[in-house]
């Protein structure tokens, strides 16, 4: 069982929900990223999502777009993120998930990427512009190297898509809370509730909800409907302002 699956199982057995913060690797520097991961763990994060900088992050809103730009200005790319994971792995066992756009992976070579990511200690990969229909090779290679492939579902997803995404996903399924990009305003509505219910009927795999969660109250509402929550833009904004993230993450952890 993967580190991600084990973590979800353990949390479930104790009636808890997973808290998965997102930070951008290399924002503001690679050295800071390692420090931030360890701080997040201390503050109560159950897994960490690490963004890989890309020039054209089309699923991201302004806060994370700027984080991509800041990290790129430090010359941080996938090639440097993998050794960073190896570094972080020396000090923690927390599940680490890469969130990367597809082209850096494609250019690296799918097989080479999967092998090296797994070796470095990456547990799962989220590729926001890769749908299962185009991911045949990626899924089979990742399976071979025990790297979880986490696909996304959206409020617009139909029954067919739900089945397809549920089948292709390993570790967990990422439910995008809003029809939109990262950092937009969250609304917890009937669509979310009914899609999550449909999803639970279609699969036993854990479901984490992300996009737009920025307050403890929102985190609680969403966590009650799923197995975990992902918080990105709100944390990335704090990092950009040079503010403390530990207090914020603790408050979220207590709320859920």
């Amino acid at each position: 069982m993967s580190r991600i699956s084990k973590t979800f199982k353990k949390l479930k057995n104790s009636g808890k929900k997973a808290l998965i913060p997102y930070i951008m690797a290399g924002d503001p520097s690679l050295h800071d990223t390692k420090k931030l991961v360890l701080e997040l763990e201390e503050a109560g994060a159950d897994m960490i999502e690490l963004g890989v900088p890309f020039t054209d992050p089309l699923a991201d809103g302004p806060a994370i777009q700027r984080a991509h730009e800041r990290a790129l200005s430090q010359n941080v790319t996938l090639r440097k993120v993998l050794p960073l994971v190896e570094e972080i792995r020396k000090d923690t066992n927390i599940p680490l998930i890469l969130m990367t756009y597809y082209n850096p992976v494609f250019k690296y070579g799918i097989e080479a990427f999967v092998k090296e990511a797994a070796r470095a200690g990456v547990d799962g990969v989220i590729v926001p512009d890769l749908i299962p229909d185009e991911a045949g090779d990626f899924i089979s290679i990742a399976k071979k190297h025990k790297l979880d492939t986490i696909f996304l579902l959206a409020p617009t997803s139909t029954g067919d898509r739900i089945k397809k995404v549920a089948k292709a996903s390993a570790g967990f399924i990422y439910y995008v809370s809003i029809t939109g990009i990262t950092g937009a305003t969250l609304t917890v509505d009937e669509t979310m509730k009914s899609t999550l219910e449909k999803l639970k009927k279609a699969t036993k795999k854990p479901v984490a909800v992300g996009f737009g969660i920025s307050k403890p109250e929102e985190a609680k509402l969403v966590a009650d409907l799923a197995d975990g929550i992902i918080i990105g833009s709100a944390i990335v904004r704090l990092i950009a302002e040079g503010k403390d993230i530990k207090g914020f993450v603790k408050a979220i952890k207590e709320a859920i």
Partner: protein
Amino acid sequence: MKKILKKLPDSKGHFNGYGGRFVPETLMPALHELEKAYKNYIKDKNFIEELSMLQKTYIGRPTALYFAKRLTEHLGGAKIYLKREDLCHTGAHKINNAIAQALLAKKMDKTRIIAETGAGQHGVATATGASLVGLECEIYMGSEDIRRQALNVFRMRLLGAKVTEVNIGSRTLKDAINEALRDWTTNVRYTHYVLGTAFGPHPYPQMVRDFQSVIGKEARQQILKAEGKLPDCLIACVGGGSNSIGLFYAFLNDNIKMTGVEAGGLGIESGKHAARFAGGSLGVFQGCKSYLLQDDDGNVLGTHSVSAGLDYASVGPEHCYLRDLKKIEYTYATDDEALKAFELLSRTEGIIPALESAHAIAEAVKVAPAMSKESIIIVNLSGRGDKDVQEVARIKGIGL
């Protein structure tokens, strides 16, 4: 026997490995809905009639196939014909696609259309389509392009569109597409994205090609009527690849030399260009797998061209496929060559071409002299140059 080309793309939008759909999951239902609507309406008698009526009475089709006598004499070789897409309403071929998609959006009960634009021609065409059928319209444009295509920005606003400046990344066409995709991801339930070229996720490359293929269909009939034979060579500029595939498509099963001309900018060695085939490699960008100008880390490189409409890091997937088959050859013209051709056509024929189209003229200038006087070239004059006059004056150091 002639080898007839396979009908592509396949059901997943692949052109022998190129193309496909690389988008956020949120957009998948919209792409399926669009594909279904498109395939349905392209066969629908009423839709076809409505569109062809608009082509005739609104766009001004068929556009002329004009024999450029003085340019031909000046070059001293092949006879040069110009397919006059510059005479389309709004001044470029972009309207062929924009009107058809606006009509389709209306049929799909969308209330709003959005588009990206580089040169501003597609933005103007989409804004025009929105006024024509009665839809809300928002156009995304990089701040660098807003500067060099100021005239078109004002035109879009006159037409009632909201023009939104994109101030991130390289501030050109690719960033405008990112922003349009973000908007679409957010407002997909009531918005249709009018992508302006034969690029992006399936079904766009196919749909835009089909809506532009009227260019080649007309040209083929017109040249047979004028000359009693097919041309020897077709030339068109390639940004995303819509005017070129639009001209070439009707000739793909004929044995004709076809040349696509990319933007060579300041030269390939300089790194400041948009010649994806000469300087790029296979990548996945903005919805499809194709040739891409990228670095070793898979990040997308900045591009440069004097013409905003060719200043783009990737190219339509069908072009990669046709290049592999050696059906189409791809070359490039530099900024200087395009600027010279811009002036040459203005002086010899009284036609000021768009800087994009001037790249195609530049290729004709290179190849025509060595061809026999009986041979025929058709150059796709994709647009008129009014929008570029100010920028060319600036480059020449002339204050207006």
